[in-house]
């Protein structure tokens, strides 16, 4: 009897370990390969989702995700980023390795490639300036960060960027910058921050939370910043100088965004949409 119990416990332990390992592995896979990304388009009042190399939208009123047509020649590429100007509901930008940067001004009916002036199409992250519709920032792998002030027609290298690989880049209009704002760069190990004059990358506060997946900030109060990590959600009230773990329901999200109404949206590693109306304390499926 004792042997049977021991064998049973052994099997349970192994199964548990396997399940945990699988969970971590799939989360890492989802993030490292950039398969999942979420962005709230303020002008278009919609959520934009990247999943399995496709782009989807979901309006505030709608319950379903609708696919946005992508350029035909991007089958070889890997869609990593979507971003939209804050006051132009017609324009969308996408980017990714072998895709470069592309723009649509008719919600995906047509796309224009904007990589002619970039050194390569190996773009790993992209963001639009929070206040300037035509200012874009693109991260080129093993090269640096390029800025365009004319909606992608021309680009200029601004910085070599953090030495770590940048998976996400977000522009913020938080006060205190010498120029017009700040850029948050998310790497697997940390979130780093630079003024948008690129006068040095600074680490944000200590974040002992395993892999770092995504960052989002409050549009009405940009000093409030959220970061999604392997060990849950963390919040900062001072732009990332210090982080406090949100004592929530244990939900792990691999991508995160915030609506102007202060609703947090995230995708778990299965690509399921969750939202929180209480600053990340509790998460529910909006479709449920």
């Amino acid at each position, binding site marked *: 009897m004792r042997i049977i119990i021991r064998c049973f416990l052994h099997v349970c332990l192994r199964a548990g370990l396997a399940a945990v390992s699988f969970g971590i592995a799939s989360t890492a896979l989802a993030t490292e390969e950039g398969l999942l990304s979420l962005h709230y388009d303020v002008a278009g009042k919609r959520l934009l989702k990247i999943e399995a190399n496709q782009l989807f939208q979901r309006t505030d009123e709608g319950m379903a995700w609708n696919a946005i047509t992508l350029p035909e020649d991007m089958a070889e590429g890997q869609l990593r980023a979507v971003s939209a100007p804050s006051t132009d509901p017609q324009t969308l930008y996408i980017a990714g390795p072998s895709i470069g940067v592309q723009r649509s001004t008719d919600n995906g009916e047509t796309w224009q490639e904007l990589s002619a002036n970039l050194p390569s199409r190996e773009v790993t992250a992209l963001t639009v300036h929070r206040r300037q519709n035509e200012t874009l920032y693109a991260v080129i792998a093993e090269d640096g960060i390029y800025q365009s002030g004319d909606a992608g027609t021309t680009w200029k290298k601004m910085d070599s960027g953090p030495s770590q690989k940048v998976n996400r880049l977000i522009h913020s209009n938080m006060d205190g910058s*010498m120029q017009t704002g700040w850029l948050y760069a998310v790497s697997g190990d940390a979130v780093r921050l630079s003024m948008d004059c690129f006068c*040095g990358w600074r680490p944000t506060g200590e974040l002992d939370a395993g892999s770092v997946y995504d960052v989002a900030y409050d549009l009405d109060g940009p000093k409030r910043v959220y970061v999604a990590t392997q060990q849950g959600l963390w919040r900062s009230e001072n732009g990332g100088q210090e982080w406090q773990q949100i004592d929530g329901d244990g939900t792990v999200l691999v991508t995160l965004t915030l609506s102007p109404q202060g609703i947090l949206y995230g995708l778990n590693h299965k690509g399921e949409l969750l939202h929180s109306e209480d600053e990340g304390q509790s998460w529910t499926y909006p479709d449920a």
Partner: protein
Amino acid sequence: MKMKASPGLIPMRKRWFFVALWLALIVVGHAMAEDHSSSRDTPQLEDGKKVYRQYCASCHGIQGEGMPNWEEQNALGELPAPPHGPEGHTWKHSDAMLYRIVAEGWRDPWNKTDRLTMPAYQEILAPSEIRDVVDYLKTLWTQEQRHHQADESVDNTFPIQSEITLE
């Protein structure tokens, strides 16, 4: 048959000399324009250097080398004075921004103190002295950095005198 130079015309050999001299002047002029970041001449750069040595060098270093560990907060929780040479980031700022920082001062928003670690010099230096010192800083950069900074300054130039007076 030997050609005789007509009176009043420059002989062919002399003409080539003047053409060569003219080309040489163009090349030298371009080289000087490349070497100096602005059209301001050497006396003004010398003035800028003097201002730099009197007011800036005690923190930023006589050669613009900055303070040690300038990228990390010190014991007071302040970012130390950065270098102004190629290893720093001064060259990333436009003329307008550099003028403003010298005139109005600066503190890093993440500093733990409230004081301006970069003091405001608008009550101490004349506008022309601020421009001179900024132009002097440009001599510490690489050519590529000067080009970058000049690009950034196209739409963000030094304030014109009337703007400064109005303020």
